[in-house]
Structure formats: C-alpha cells, structure tokens
C-alpha cells in the first residue's frame, strides 16, 4: 500500500528533446528487433521507448556469417544493417506495432545525406513514430554509416537535412570511434539535433586462431556490452559538460546500478542493447529498479539525478 501511494508521487517520465517517455529506459536499436521478438519475455508497454532495428531506404541483406562473437564482457556484431527497407517497415510492420501504445523510435541509416532526408520525410508522413534516431555511427557497412559520424561537418549536414524534413525529435547517435566526441556533439547541436544518443559500438575484431583468419565475415564488428561501459560514461560526461542537449546514454548497461551511473554523468534516459540478450526482461526490471531507487532516495523524480556526479 505505502509503496503504491509513493509511486504516484515520483515522476519517472522523461522528455528527451521533445520526445515523451514514460520512464527513462529505452531498448537500443538492433538489439530488440522490431519490438515483437521479445514480447513473450517482457511487457513492452512498460518500456520507455523501443528503438527499432536500423532501417535504410532500400532492403539490405546484411553481412556474411559469422555476424556475432562473444568477447570478454562484451560481444562483437557485424549484422550489416539487414532490414526490409523503410517502405516495408512503415507499411507492413508499423501498423500493428502502433496498436500496443509503445513509444517507437525509428533508427535510420543512409548512404548519402539525401537518403537520410528522404527516409525521414517518409517517416514524417506516417503517424506512430515518436522520434528519429540517426545512425551515423554504424561500423558495419561499407558506405555511409560511421564515416558520417566521424566528421563534424557531415554530422551537421545530415542533422540539418533531416530536421528540414520532419517535426519529429531528431536524435543523432554518435560514434565513439572519434578523437574528439565533444566536437561531434557540438556539430550535431549546430545542425539542430533535439537530443543526442551515445554511444554506438566501438569498432573491434576477433581472430579465429584455428583457421588463422578474422572470426567475423565482415572482419570488423561493433563492440558492445559491459566492456565498453567505461568509455561510454566518459564520453557522456564530456559531452554533458559542454553541450546543452539531453542525452540518451548507453553502452554496457546490464543492471540498475549501471543505469544510475549513466544518469549521474548526464544521461536523461538510457538505452539497453546487449543486456537484452543476457536478460530479456532487463528493460522492465531496470525501469522498476530506478523507480525504487528514486523512492528510497526521497527524490521527486529521476530528473534530479541527471548529471549529479559531474564535477
């Protein structure tokens, strides 16, 4: 009873650059399919936002297998943006997803600035999407992807182009594979970004000793999971200090304590990727864990914690 009453008093909702989330937990693009795959294991209506698999203008088949590999406290993936293309997503997948009342975020990738703009225009015309995450940081495709995310000028251009096509919150997802994350974040801001998503995967690889060749079909892949958490926290800390935009933080979150670390260094909301594979109910559990924490600490809402550890 007491708990019931208290729960009403704490405010777990987040406004991420204009995008409303019922709680600060998002599931990260590429780790949760299109929202349906995990529905037997977790109540998806209790997740703050579901960011769907990266979508391109045309259908993509993705990379050769092996596409994934486990590394110490992490994993490599080189899916290669396998997806049915934006039209199939919007026309065939979206309608049924909308009915669940889940906050759906699109994650898009283009080969050119124009493609990003074109995909965004298509999304803007369809109701049911709460925001657009710009994947300018995918290390697993030949064209586009990460190269956009490592050049401040291109980052600005992409964001601008997308902003001119949509009124939806635009959230560029930054690559950690850069010398100066702050300059990239500033470029995104200058382009008109509503929030920042960080970080995408670190570029890595693994070697098959028996066969004496790279493990992954694509040679390189993106490193995710707990291994990268220290790097993600550092970059968010740096950007929070210098750039006045809300941050969707993630990289290696597997429990409530991890999520708190991200919030304390400046993330307004957090995304869970690899953690879903370890525990499919993780998003719901961490949402609850954060709420309990806010109550225990006697706070009014989660927002009071954002950036509290930044000196």
């Amino acid at each position, binding site marked *: 009873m007491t708990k019931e009453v208290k729960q009403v008093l704490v405010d777990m909702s987040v406004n991420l650059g204009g995008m409303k989330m019922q709680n600060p937990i998002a599931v990260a693009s590429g780790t949760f399919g299109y929202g349906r795959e995990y529905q037997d294991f977790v109540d998806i209506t209790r997740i703050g936002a579901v960011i769907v698999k990266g979508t391109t203008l045309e259908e993509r088949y993705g990379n050769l297998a092996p596409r*994934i590999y486990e590394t110490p406290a992490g994993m490599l993936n080189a899916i290669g943006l396998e997806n049915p293309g934006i039209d199939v997503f919007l026309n065939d997948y979206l309608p049924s997803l909308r009915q669940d009342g889940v906050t759906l975020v699109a994650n898009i990738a283009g080969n050119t600035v124009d493609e990003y703009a074109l995909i965004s225009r298509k999304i803007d015309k369809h109701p049911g999407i709460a925001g657009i995450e710009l994947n300018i940081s995918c290390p697993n495709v030949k064209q586009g992807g990460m190269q956009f995310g490592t050049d401040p000028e291109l980052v600005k251009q992409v964001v601008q182009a997308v902003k001119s096509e949509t009124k939806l919150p635009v959230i560029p997802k930054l690559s950690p594979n850069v010398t100066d994350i702050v300059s990239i974040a500033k470029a995104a801001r200058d382009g008109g970004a509503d929030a920042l998503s960080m970080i995408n995967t670190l570029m890595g690889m693994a070697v098959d000793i028996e066969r004496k060749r790279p493990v992954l079909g694509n040679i390189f892949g993106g490193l995710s999971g707990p291994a990268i958490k220290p790097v993600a926290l550092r970059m968010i800390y740096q950007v929070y200090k210098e750039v006045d935009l809300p941050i969707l933080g993630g990289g290696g979150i597997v429990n409530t304590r991890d999520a708190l670390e991200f919030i304390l260094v400046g993330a307004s909301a957090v995304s869970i990727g690899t953690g879903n594979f370890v525990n499919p109910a993780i998003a719901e559990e961490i949402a609850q864990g954060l709420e309990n924490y806010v109550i225990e600490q006697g706070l009014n809402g989660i927002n009071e914690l954002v950036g509290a550890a930044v000196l």
Partner: protein
Amino acid sequence: MPLSEKGLVISNQRVGRDLWEMEFLAPGIAAESKPGQFVHIRVGDDHDPLLRRPLSLYDIDQNLGRITLLYKIAGRGTNLLSKFNPDQLIDVMGPLGKGFNLLQGRRVILVGGGVGIAPLLFLARELQARQNEIAVFYGGSSSDEMCSPDRFVNLGVGIMTATMDGSTGFKGLVTDMMKTSIDPLSIDYFYTCGPEAMMAAVAEYAVQHDIAGEVSLEEYMACGVGACLGCARKLKVTDNAYVKICKDGPVFPMHDVELR
C-alpha cells in the same frame, strides 16, 4: 509461447569424457516444448562469459515438468554449466525456435553425430508416440565421447552405433554404416543433427534416393529469438536473404540447406 523460467537443477553429471547430462524442473517450458527446439541458458552471473548458450532439448517429461539436456564441454560456457549443483536455480529461456515436423505412421531414420544426438531422443519419443517406425544411427569418434544408447533402447527404438576408432559398434562413419544397413525404398524421411559433413552425407544419400528430411543447424547466437539478426544463414531457396537459425530454425528442410 516461450518463456523465461528459473529451473531447479535436479542432477548434473558426467556421462562421457566431456559429455554431461543435466536435469532440471521447468514446468512452464517443458509444457510448451517440441522436439528440435532449444533452450537458451545463462551459465553464470558475471559478465564473462556474457551471452547465453543454446542447447537442444534432449528429453522432456511433461508430467514432471522436467527437462534433460545433453551437452559437451566445448569451452567456458559449457564448463560453467557443469558446475551447477542439484537444488541450484538456472536461468532458462525456452522453448525457442521451430522444431522438427512430426510425421505420423511413417518409416523414418534418425542420424545423430556426436552431441548432435541430443535433439533426437525427444524426437524419437514423440515419433514413437505417433506410430512411426524408427531406426536411429548414432556416430562418434570414440565410445567414451558418446552417451549410452539405453535411453533409446528403453523407448523401444532400434539404435545402431558407429565410432571412428571402432571402440564400440561399427568402425567408421555412421553414414557408411547407415547406407549398408537400410533399404532406401523402405524409408520415408530422414531427421539428422550433427557435424555438417555428416549431415551432408545423409542429404546426399537422401537426394540420390529422392527421400525428404530435415536437418538441425547451429550458428553462434546472441538473442535466440530473432531480435539481433546474428545467427544468419543463407538457404538455397532464399537467394540473397538470410534465415535466422534461432527463429526460422534450427530445423530446416534437408534439401533447402547448403551444407558445408
């Protein structure tokens, strides 16, 4: 519907050199399970190893809600699995994937290689219940790396064994033994699981004699539910697109698969 359950370990013991058998109670999963499906298991609480490990359903007792696994210690994950003690809880997702097609009243051959025998026991049980005539061929490198055929024998199913070193049964390839032991005209269907080279030999024979069948494939997995697109594989029939072993499989029509 698959679910996530804390299984209660009943037993976990060595049954061969690197071969172990684990029994646990997970009534929810057991009730939903079909032969050829798999469970996705968290082998430790720490972050290394991080990912779950997929294991086939070796046997199911739906009345007791009991699941039995047969696993080979292949690396750190399966090694950690072997450390579980009775009365411990184990974090299991399942049943996952699509299982075998269960025929009715046919004459079928099951060919298992190594730990690939695992899904064939539960399969044999269910095929037996459907009035099929079943013969099992089980191959391995050596007897000490194989489980006992008793569980098949107890089902009333014929099983013949082949080993590369001749330590038990026929000496040589299980597929060679099979070819000399069966009359292709009397066979309706093949089910096979094991090394791809072995399955390829079965498939080749099946093509020659125009017999259909199914194979169970493996790929490195992360999610196990079709969300990560990691366990991709091209089929002969899908052109450039990839199927997902975890969701579209692990069982596929034998003649759709390009075995390596």
